[in-house]
């Protein structure tokens, strides 16, 4: 039965922290219902740093240098651009085992506006040395990726969704691969990252293969090539800006291998998104809604594989 992804995240973290008292949770004043248990039962491992992201990253770096295993929780857009230099130098350059859990992926904050949208953060994070970026899309993959992040001893950023999402994955998958097929098909391949995959899955049929690229960085290049080898028509879908996006990366990979394929990339623009509305409304505004995605796929299906 599906669980709330935030519950999956923080319950997993609770179990880890209960076993390893070096695990500490730092937040920039961001709460979650499922965090309350952590806060109550493990008060010596929980710190509300205050609304000070630069300091939160530096403090986490110091704690990691002293043997702690910091997990940070906050809003994605504030945990990247606000404190980018701290991420680059204090975390990335020293390769410290810090896990950052960012809520509000893509345009999840919808009508909160461009200050809260996280469509540029993936591109920024791609430049952080040694950092892995994950976009889990259901409770099972969220749980597994939190475990994976703890085991990795390297910088990790996890885009955390909210609410109950349909299960696409099982807990004992080989998450180390960074991608997996969630729907089989034979004419068009859709490479997707992030929660928008649920929108994609609502419009596909047996002719469309859908691959969840849940690890954005480092990308599993061989896995992408393997997926694309049987298809001449490929669609990439992501809730991020085009610059530095999955679409660009896939095109680069295929170009480098002289793969003569048609690749259509659906993403948000590189500019900010000024329209006010829900996540779904903004999908519609930028042709990322189910109908628009379906139209692109249908067109490519006619072209054949």
């Amino acid at each position, binding site marked *: 039965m599906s669980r709330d992804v935030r519950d999956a995240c923080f319950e997993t973290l609770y179990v880890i922290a209960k076993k390893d008292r070096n695990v500490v949770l730092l937040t920039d004043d961001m709460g979650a219902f499922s965090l309350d248990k952590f806060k109550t039962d493990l008060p010596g491992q929980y*710190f509300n740093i205050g609304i*000070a992201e*630069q300091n939160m990253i*530096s*403090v986490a770096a*110091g704690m990691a240098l*002293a043997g*702690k295993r910091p997990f940070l929780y906050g809003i994605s857009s504030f945990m990247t651009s606000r404190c980018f*230099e701290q991420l680059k*130098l204090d975390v990335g350059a020293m390769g410290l085992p810090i896990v950052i859990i960012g809520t509000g992926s893509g345009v999840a904050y919808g009508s909160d506006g461009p200050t809260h949208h996280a469509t540029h953060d993936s591109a920024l994070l791609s430049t952080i040395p040694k950092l892995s970026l994950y976009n889990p899309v259901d409770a099972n993959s969220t749980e597994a990726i939190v475990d994976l992040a703890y085991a990795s001893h390297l910088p990790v950023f996890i885009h955390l969704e909210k609410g109950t999402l349909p299960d696409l994955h099982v807990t004992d998958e080989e998450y180390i691969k960074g991608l997996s097929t969630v729907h089989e098909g034979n004419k068009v391949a859709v490479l997707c990252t992030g929660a928008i995959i649920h929108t994609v899955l609502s419009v596909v049929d047996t002719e469309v293969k859908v691959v969840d690229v849940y690890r954005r960085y480092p990308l599993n290049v061989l896995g992408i090539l393997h997926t694309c080898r049987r298809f001449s028509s490929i669609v990439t879908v992501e809730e991020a800006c085009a610059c530095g996006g999955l679409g660009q990366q896939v095109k680069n990979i295929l170009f480098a291998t002289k793969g003569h394929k048609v690749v259509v990339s659906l993403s948000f623009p590189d500019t900010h998104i000024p329209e006010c509305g829900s996540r779904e409304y903004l999908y519609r505004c930028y042709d990322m809604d189910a109908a628009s995605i379906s139209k692109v796929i249908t067109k490519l299906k006619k072209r054949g594989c």
Partner: protein
Amino acid sequence: MTVEELTAHAKWVRRQVLEMIVSANKGHIGGSLSCTDILVALYQGGILAISPKGITDLNRDRFIMSKGHACEALYAVLASFGFFPIEELQQYGQPGSMLMSHPWKDIPGVEVSTGALGHGLGIGAGIALAGKLDELSYRTFVLMGDGECYEGSVWEAAMFAAHHKLCNLCCIVDRNRQITLDFTEDCLRLEPLARKWEAFGWRVVEVNGHDMESLLQVFSSTTEAPTVCIANTIKGKGISYMEDQPGWHHAVPKGDMVEIARKDLS
């Protein structure tokens, strides 16, 4: 070392700073010379409980050179402390050298990579908090420039350290009153600097940053609050034509100036 020996050693360190910068034709001479006595007091004065062999000891004291641009003084101190051969200093700034112009964590004795200002205090606060959680007795020292106090992140960290009563944290501000282009008070007033730190909940001690005895005394004492030592210093200290003169943030002495500096530091 006695105070006299420490003072003599500081002069040796300053000479190394000069030679490194002249040889590489690059470096931050003014700020290296202003903080030399502070570094010598910490390392050779027996304040820091560290040793090259025990650099992975969990309970070692930590030092963070937050004003990473003054690394020439740090390198000379680390070399003379035994972290790497003194001859290595000749490689400073040369192609392929481990001694680049800002300290990198791979260099023996360097705890944290620095160079971008405003990072060291937050990192130091994190190390100090971890020490308290683990009930370890080590102390953490962070050396900042006074111009670094312009960075907002410094004050985020200052608030944090005071709130968490990080008495095992000592921040030293190298108050040489200059930044690259200006005097601090002409560019953007820092004063009353001590009162700012006090208002943030720190124990503030002002000292002459070139007086070994005063430095040793401040560094040895702790209270319930984190300590900030505002060390009043002279930018370019030890080289006659450079002391307190603007323009020596990262200028390199040339021609006769090199010989005068060598005489001053002999």
